[in-house]
């Protein structure tokens, strides 16, 4: 049984990772959602073998229940993911409003550091003239 779930988790993580590595924010968002589903599958694995819903109606052996604790974890996680997803959507929206572009660009300051190598040395003061230059 767990092999199936392990495979499902693997599939969700793989597809999620693939999408998260795209440059379009929308696809990254979808990838994140898939990864979250993957984590929920792991929580389902943690809950163990399928069982009865965890309701106490007096008929069941307690051990027949699906472990309720991971269920509670998953529920909390699902709601949190929802909140964060909404926020990311807003970020994507804002990004679109500002740039009319759905892709994530490289960090401009990193690019600048890469392309303007000389500024550092000047800043360090290493190439400044010194009094020793007067040495004859």
């Amino acid at each position, binding site marked *: 049984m767990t092999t199936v779930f392990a495979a499902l988790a693997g599939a969700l993580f793989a597809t999620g990772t693939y999408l998260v590595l795209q440059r379009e924010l929308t696809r990254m968002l979808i990838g994140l959602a898939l990864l979250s589903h993957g984590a929920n599958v792991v929580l*389902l694995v943690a809950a163990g073998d399928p069982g009865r819903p965890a309701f106490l109606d007096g008929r069941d052996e307690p051990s027949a229940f699906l472990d309720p604790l991971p269920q509670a974890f998953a529920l909390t996680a699902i709601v949190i993911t*929802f909140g964060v997803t909404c926020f990311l959507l807003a970020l994507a929206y*804002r990004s679109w409003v500002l740039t009319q572009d759905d892709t994530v660009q490289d960090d401009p300051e990193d690019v600048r550091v890469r392309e303007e190598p000389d500024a*550092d040395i000047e800043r360090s*003061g290493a190439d400044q003239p010194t009094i020793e230059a007067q040495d004859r």
Partner: protein
Amino acid sequence: MIATLSLHLAIGIGILLAAPVLRRWAAPLAAVPSLASLAFAMTIAPDVLDGEPWTATFTWVPGLDLSVDLFVDGLGLVMILLVSGIGLAIAAYSGSYFAPNATAARTAGLLVLFAGAMLGLVTAEHVVILYLFWELTSILSWLLIGQRHTDAAARAAATHALVLTGSGGLALLGGLVILAREAGTWSVVELLADPPGGTAAGVGLGLVVLGIVTKSAQYPFHAWLPGAMVAPTPVSAYLHSATMVKAGIYLALRLAPAFVHLDAWQPVVLTIGLLTMVAGGLRAIRQDDLKLLLAFGTVSQLGFLFVLTGAGFEYATIAGVTLLVAHALFKATLFLVVGIVDHQAHTRDRHELAELRLGTGWGPVRVCAVLTAASMAGVPLMAGFIAKEEAYAAFIYEGGTVGLVGIVGIVTGSILTMAYSLRFASVFWRRSDRNDADVKSPSWTFGAPVYVLTALTIGIGLVPAPIIGDLVDVASGDLLGAEVASELALWHGVNTALVLSVLTIAAGVLLWRLTDPFVRLTGRAAPPIDGYRAFQIGLEGLFTLARVTTTRIQTGSLPRYIAIILMVVVGGPALVALTTTSLPDLADPLDVPVQLALAGFIAGAALATIFVPRRLGAVVVLGGVGYGMAGLFVAQGAPDLALTQFAIETLTIVAFVLVLRQLPARFSRSDDRAGQIRRMGAAAVVGVGAFVLVLAVSGTDPTTPASDLAVAQALPEAEGRNIVNVILVDFRGLDTLGEIAVLLVAAVGVTTLARVGRRPPRTGVPPLPEVDPLDPTTMDKDART
């Protein structure tokens, strides 16, 4: 002593803070701590001279055995007298040298702090406290050199000094900590009384020597010192001749008797010291700028001092202490003279100075300049002579290879010293002319420190024994752990040392006459790069290395970051699991086909999200994954979860649709094949990683006490039948509380981002910058004016 140090700290900081107010009062105020320190030295002097070192302790971090342990023995007393005595002279001098402004006041404040640090250094008895004050002197010197901070040269020189002495300081710390570990004590005295041996101690000692060598401007780390001459002259006079550069010498004096028995010690010390002495002298004799001449002269003399103080045998130590005193006196004086000249004539170039006429008022200064230069050259009747004579005698007495190498080296160096001293003095002994002077003569107060210090130089030169004899004896004795009677005197009779002195002076005069051809000759033999250039290349190399590394690693590309992070965090542990744990059998029986079908559906939908070309389409397929998950939850027996998943999935899709309607319908197509393959690779690593990790834990079958408790207590204690809900609101209610806080914050963020800067729909009036999308009052009207 602690009170004295605190006084330095308090007055130093006070002057810094009140600099704009103090102005001309800063210099007199700066003299106070030095006076206090001298007074303190006088009170303890009788005991110290009787062989009773003064000690004090102040606990700091007991857990790390850090305490401010101080002690003053003979050498400490000598150093206190030098540091505070010359500090006093500098303070007096600064009052005339600087214009009374805030910058000058700040310099004075920093100098006070520096004096305090130096005093701490020479009285520290705990190796870490020694390092502490050592590093403080580096930092303060950095600030002092950089004082004229609008000058690019000053900034560069400050950086250079900081990096070199700072690195040396860290080497020193490393070395001291290793030595202390090996010796099992943090106490300087105990460490030296029973010096550790072995490889580790050797490495530690090497690092300590590295610290000494950088701080005391020995070759090849000397170049920061001439560079530091951009500092105002009082600073140069104090730091770079009399005090800071002596820190290394001071430490060498302390270490030498303990470690001189090591095979490598004397060769290392002699090589570095003599090389520095000769090379510094060679540079000094070709300088036209008087301050630079003195700077290289200082480098040379530091080499001389290092040889003497590091040599480790009795007479060398005595000579070392004597030269320490003599050098501080004459070098400080000479710098002050240059400062006066520079201040009045606005030049330090000997050719330019030769063109200028100095009035009669210059007489005393010129006399002092020549006399002090004579002391530097080691001419009889001067303090320098006494020291050099002792040094010659010491190496002659020692004999052997060390004696021979030493005597040849220091005679060579001293000939050079004689020559550059003459070069310096010749500027001042020219006949001056009448009253139509080009240059205004210095005021009496400006010259006073020079006159006093020169008087001391002559005094010691004439009658050394009464003035410093006891001090030198006690200092050397404390170092060597033996009774020492140095018998310092002007006249020891005609002996080898005296003959050598005479020869030195004669050769020096000859060399001075032949300076120009000699410089031409040696110029060709000069090394291809000098120390400064080497430092510069090193620094550039470091910057280049740093930049290349950084641009390789910090590419700014988010997908790259994600790939690395996921592969490390998921792939790494999975790899460990794969290789070290026993994974269960893959083919375990599958008894619930519904789950298999659902899992297949979910996986298929997940895969499909990759290929759907339209945004909305991809979202709908993603919804399929979510509903599939809900189905899976039902199948496993988790209806609450399924219900929540179902509702959330629906809302998520709605939110997606609301946003995506603004965006283009289709994803852009990229033809980046290599990128696709890299992405697939990363995806495979992470996917397989997750698979392996789940398998790795699937073989375990733990008891779950929390769940059992939840089942047992839900109804009787929490009075709820839905265990999941009871967990959420009772047993683990805090999780839920955190979770709704997340929702609230997300809502805040969503509205901020979605509505910031949105234009009012109908009015057409551009909004004010202060439009607040989150303000409840604007929520209704969309804009506030």
